[in-house]
């Protein structure tokens, strides 16, 4: 679900998916399946007419023998709705030139500035080959690719796992590399260039790209008959065009908080396209503890992230699996996420102040907190297992320090985000 990348989900998702998935051992005793299929349908809907996403995830795995298998997965996302364009709400009417530069749209006084031309279909494909290397080692290699109208991703990934200590300890390393090409509608805006009137693209450049590299090293350690812990450290570097070509910042008067006029002849307020650094290095440390009770189980995880954009985050996630019977289960889930803003995050820019080198008003880089509460129900049948998951997500973010001046105090600069997630799944082997 790319909200107008370059936050280009694709690699990270692919990374997570692959640097994910080595099938260590068949779980419960079952007839030896040669094929495994797993399909999920996802609906994600934000309130206040914001983003709606419908996605299909499907994968098929072919087990050749105990030591070799391959799998393919397909993801299709269909996004509609509206997303904040980065400008701040104002008590006056605001006119914006759309992304492609061929028309303008108007936001009424007091309304949230949302870009409604937000229709996107994305298709992603991954493929992986997994093989054992002797009794205690496994490797895998694969590719990932995704395409949408303004973004193409291609990537490769590889991974190695080794067991020690009667398989009480498993150490793994993985690496992924991706090349993403963007061709935003209307071109790539020049960083911090002002928005111009319709049909004037002198503030836009051509297509751009970025490279993304991720490495992961981790260990899973069985602690006792009932529990284990997994710890992973990952390091990632993105290089290239990392800004969101569809987002900009409002320049407002430092006293009145109202937008100031834009370039002469444009008829617009002064909005500057965002400009993020062209390198981002991030590290994260993840730990999960899983524990089996006689009937139920639970998993608690913590992830700490830190990057050179100044963003730091903490994520705590807990699940409790209540195995109601051999055939069905209920799994409540809670997640808490806290994030510190990027160094260059600015809710608004002030007229007359020196222009920073980098700036973005994307709320996703702001100080924020998010809660998720959900429950999953699953049912095993003679052929396969189906499940349904329902989650509620709420995110609240804070404007950057000193942003709330004058008229801006009359508006909700970053409205709370509330979303509902519904997911159906069906998996079976044959």
């Amino acid at each position, binding site marked *: 679900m790319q909200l107008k990348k370059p*936050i280009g*989900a694709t690699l*990270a*998702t692919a*990374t*997570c*998916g692959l*640097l*994910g*998935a*080595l099938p*260590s*051992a068949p*779980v419960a005793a079952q007839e030896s399946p040669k094929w495994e299929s797993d399909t*999920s349908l*996802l609906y994600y809907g934000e309130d206040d007419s914001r983003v709606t996403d419908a996605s299909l*995830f499907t994968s098929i795995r072919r087990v050749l023998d105990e*030591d070799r298998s391959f799998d393919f997965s397909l993801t299709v996302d269909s996004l509609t709705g509206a997303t904040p364009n980065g400008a701040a709400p104002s008590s006056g009417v605001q006119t914006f030139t759309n992304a492609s530069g061929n028309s303008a749209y108007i936001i009424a006084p007091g309304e949230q500035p949302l870009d409604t031309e937000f229709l996107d279909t994305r298709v992603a494909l991954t493929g992986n080959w997994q093989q054992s290397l002797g009794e205690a080692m496994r490797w895998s290699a694969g590719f990932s690719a995704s395409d949408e109208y303004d973004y193409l991703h291609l990537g490769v990934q590889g991974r190695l796992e080794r067991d020690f200590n*009667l*398989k*009480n300890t*498993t150490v*793994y390393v*993985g690496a992924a590399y991706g090349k993403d090409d963007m061709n935003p509608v209307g071109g790539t805006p020049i960083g911090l260039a002002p928005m111009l009137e319709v049909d004037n693209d002198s503030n836009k450049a051509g297509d751009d790209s970025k490279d993304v590299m991720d490495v992961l090293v*981790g260990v899973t350690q*069985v*602690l*006792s*008959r009932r529990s*284990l*812990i*997994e*710890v*992973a450290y*990952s390091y*990632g570097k993105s290089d290239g065009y990392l800004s969101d070509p569809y987002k900009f910042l409002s320049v407002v008067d430092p006293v009145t908080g109202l937008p100031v006029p834009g370039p002469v002849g444009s008829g617009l307020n002064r909005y500057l396209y965002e400009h993020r650094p062209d390198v981002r290095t991030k*590290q*994260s*440390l*993840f*730990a*999960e503890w899983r524990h*089996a009770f006689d009937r*139920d*189980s639970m998993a608690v995880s913590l992830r*700490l992230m830190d*990057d050179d*954009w100044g*963003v730091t*985050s*903490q994520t705590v996630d807990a699940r409790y*699996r209540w195995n109601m019977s051999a055939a069905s289960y209920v799994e409540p889930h809670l997640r808490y*996420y806290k994030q510190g803003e990027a160094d260059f995050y600015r809710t608004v820019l002030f007229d007359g102040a020196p222009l920073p080198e980098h700036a973005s008003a994307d709320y*996703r*880089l702001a100080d924020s907190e*998010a809660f998720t509460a959900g429950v999953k129900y699953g049912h095993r049948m003679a052929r396969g297992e189906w499940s349904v*998951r329902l989650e509620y*997500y709420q995110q609240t973010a804070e404007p950057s320090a000193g942003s709330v001046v004058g008229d801006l105090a009359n508006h909700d600069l970053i409205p709370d*985000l509330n979303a509902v997630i519904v*997911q159906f799944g069906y998996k079976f082997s044959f």
Partner: protein
Amino acid sequence: MNRLHPVLLIAILAATTGCATVQPWERDLHAREDMQPNQRDAAIDDHIYFSKEASSGGRGFAGGGCGCN
């Protein structure tokens, strides 16, 4: 990294010093399907949160389980 991480690492080290070796025939609970990480749900979660937050990924999925073969 956050001030928290040295504490986290020490806690992990401390936790692992106490672990006994679990024999291959004592892996019954680890072999349970609900003790494996759910890769599909984790991938979907990451897919969603990636577009709403500034962090992504971070985990691997290896080890544990029944340890068979």
